[in-house]
């Protein structure tokens, strides 16, 4: 029922938009030229006006708020809405045409892509939000912990059950590990964070992690908590606990240095953003579709492989010119250095690199009305 409500709202917004277009069509044809190249962002007084709506991944919610605020400052007459209904809901609404743009933690599946192409012509999918997932722990007397991927999988699969286990001790010769039982903490609600972490485990340690990848935690019997804040609360509340959480919310808890190749890497925005540098684009999905096959098993030094990469979805072709202009301007701001910095400050995400920005900018510049 929530979905239908959102749909009705979306329909209302779209019809409002149609009105706006009808009224301001003379206006639009005037500034068409400069809007196409600069993306209509910044440069003093903007002439953009109207409302666009998006929906999708709740992981982007904080970043989207920062982007809305930043975009509004440059374009006072524009309203951008983002409803964090979840990735699945976002993809569904985007395909159905209820929203102008969408957010999703997982790239569109093949059949979804076909359906979306029917709506959009070419589908644009670009990574806009990269967030490291920290492995936080709370063990009395231990401040630093190095863990190999297979050990991490063993701990979360409840095969390794005490902190002084040999597998842990081997990587931490200097630490005084207690014989406390390990309590792994996972999310009790379906989540993109879970999906990314589980995908990481299944790629780097397939033997120790035999479970299927989905947004629900596959192992029963561990400690389950609601939301990122719930996981952080559970980890800090117990002794001998370890859990995974968006790094921005890890607080004062120490986090694990993850084994990558020969080294152990602590999470940092740069190390997380590095993942996209070493990853390959998924083949055969259209020139503007920047879905990535993340290189979780990279051995590149200084790369933190447990990241959540969240995408923005948009159409290359919109029916109304106003909508196309607004989406283009907004997404241009989102991937701009300024926008990425705003998200980093508000949500603790890792800003995308300049090289990646140059790569995906053409996709956003391609947005037009048709």
């Amino acid at each position, binding site marked *: 029922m*929530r*979905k239908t409500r959102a749909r009705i709202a979306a329909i209302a917004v779209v019809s409002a938009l149609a009105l706006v277009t009808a009224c301001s069509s003379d206006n639009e044809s005037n500034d068409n030229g400069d809007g196409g190249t600069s993306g209509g962002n910044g440069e003093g007084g903007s002439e953009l006006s109207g409302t666009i709506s998006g929906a999708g991944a*709740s992981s982007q919610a904080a970043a989207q708020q920062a982007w809305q605020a930043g975009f509004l400052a440059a374009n006072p007459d524009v309203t951008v809405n983002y409803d964090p*209904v*979840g*990735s*699945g*809901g976002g993809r*569904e609404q985007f395909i159905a045409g209820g929203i102008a743009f969408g957010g999703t933690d997982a790239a569109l599946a093949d059949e979804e892509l076909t359906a979306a192409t029917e709506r959009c012509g070419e589908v644009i999918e670009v990574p806009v939000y990269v967030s490291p997932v920290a492995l936080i722990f709370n063990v009395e007397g231990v401040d630093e912990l190095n863990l190999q991927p297979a050990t991490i999988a063993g701990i979360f699969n409840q095969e390794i059950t005490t902190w002084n286990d040999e597998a842990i001790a081997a990587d931490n010769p200097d630490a005084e590990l207690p014989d406390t*039982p390990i*309590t792994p*903490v*996972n999310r*009790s*609600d*379906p*989540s993109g964070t879970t999906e990314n972490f589980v995908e990481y485990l299944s790629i780097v340690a397939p033997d120790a992690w035999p479970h299927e990848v989905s*947004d*629900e*935690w596959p*192992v*029963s*019997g*561990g*400690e*389950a*908590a*609601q939301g990122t804040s*719930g996981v952080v*609360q*559970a980890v800090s*509340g*117990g*002794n*001998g*606990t370890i859990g995974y959480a968006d790094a921005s919310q890890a607080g004062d808890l120490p986090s694990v240095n993850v084994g990558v190749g020969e080294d152990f890497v602590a999470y940092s925005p740069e190390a997380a953003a590095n993942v996209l540098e070493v990853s390959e684009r998924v083949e055969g999905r259209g020139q503007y579709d920047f879905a990535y096959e993340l290189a979780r098993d990279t051995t590149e030094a200084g790369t933190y492989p447990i990241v959540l990469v969240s995408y923005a979805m948009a159409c290359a072709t919109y029916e109304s010119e106003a909508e196309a202009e607004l989406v283009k301007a907004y997404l241009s701001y989102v991937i701009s250095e300024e926008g990425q910095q705003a998200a980093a400050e508000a949500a603790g995400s890792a800003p995308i690199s300049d090289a990646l920005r140059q790569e995906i900018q053409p996709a956003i510049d391609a947005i037009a009305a048709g």
Partner: protein
Amino acid sequence: MSSSTELTHPDNQPQPPPEAPLFEKPVSRFGDRVFSSSAMGAGVLILVILAGVAAFLLVEAWPALWADPDEVPGGDGIVLYVWPLLFGTLLAALFALLLAAPLAVAIALFITHYAPRRLATALGYVIDLLAAVPSIIFGLWGLSELAPLTVEPTRWLEENLGFIPLFEGPASATGRTMLVASIVLAVMILPITTAVIREAFLQTPRLHEEASLALGATRWEMIRQAVLPFGRSSIIGGAMLGLGRALGETMAVAIVLSPSGGVTFNLINNGNPSTIAANIALDFPESSGLDINVLIASGLVLFAVTLLVNMTARAVINRRRDFSGAN
């Protein structure tokens, strides 16, 4: 103006047509008709709402009931999906009732028969106030205050009473267990249960109590002979109403409980079955398609269970009217 018409009203009364039939309807004015039809409308409305909710649940749950078992989350079909949740719901609610019901009886007895009047009134207010606290507050209290407090005691339970399946362990390191969820639920259902029982105890016929005392009974014997038998059906009714509330409680359980296990009676582990309401709250935001139908189907089961419990409670309470010691 209206008062003047009312004043003339009694004067009109003494002259009804003498040949009026005996069972003719009483005089009905416009105001009477408006009031009676709006009151009836309100009564019908509640039935319509209930039927609407039931119809919504049925229609939305329908696809899930006939879905291919592979497509239901968990891959084992709707029955095996709902069963652990139903079990968790019943376990948490029944255990909460087990804690709350004796306490509620004791509180009600204290208020009605032991406490000085002024203290009794104040205490009554405090209990009623508990009912006004939002459930999320109870949840946060359970999560951040109560749960850590139980870590040490549950470890003791595991070591010394581990042979009882309830305390098999291993004890949770964070205290977010079925035990704590049940205690939180017990606190939440205490007010309604106490209120119902207290009202019944207050209505115990004075004559019964005095007769018992006159025959030489002590106060405790008087309570056993006169008060408890009179209030028995109210105790059951109040407990059932509390049970109905505990079954449907959502946020407090979603926050407090660590729901990661299947069907187990183990109260102090972190692998607990979730409850239907908490599971819906946790899973709904990220669900789409058939998953939503499955969640609503589990809601339908909860609806049926709570309806059954509440109707039984009402039936028990109503029976008291006919067979209580008062007549």
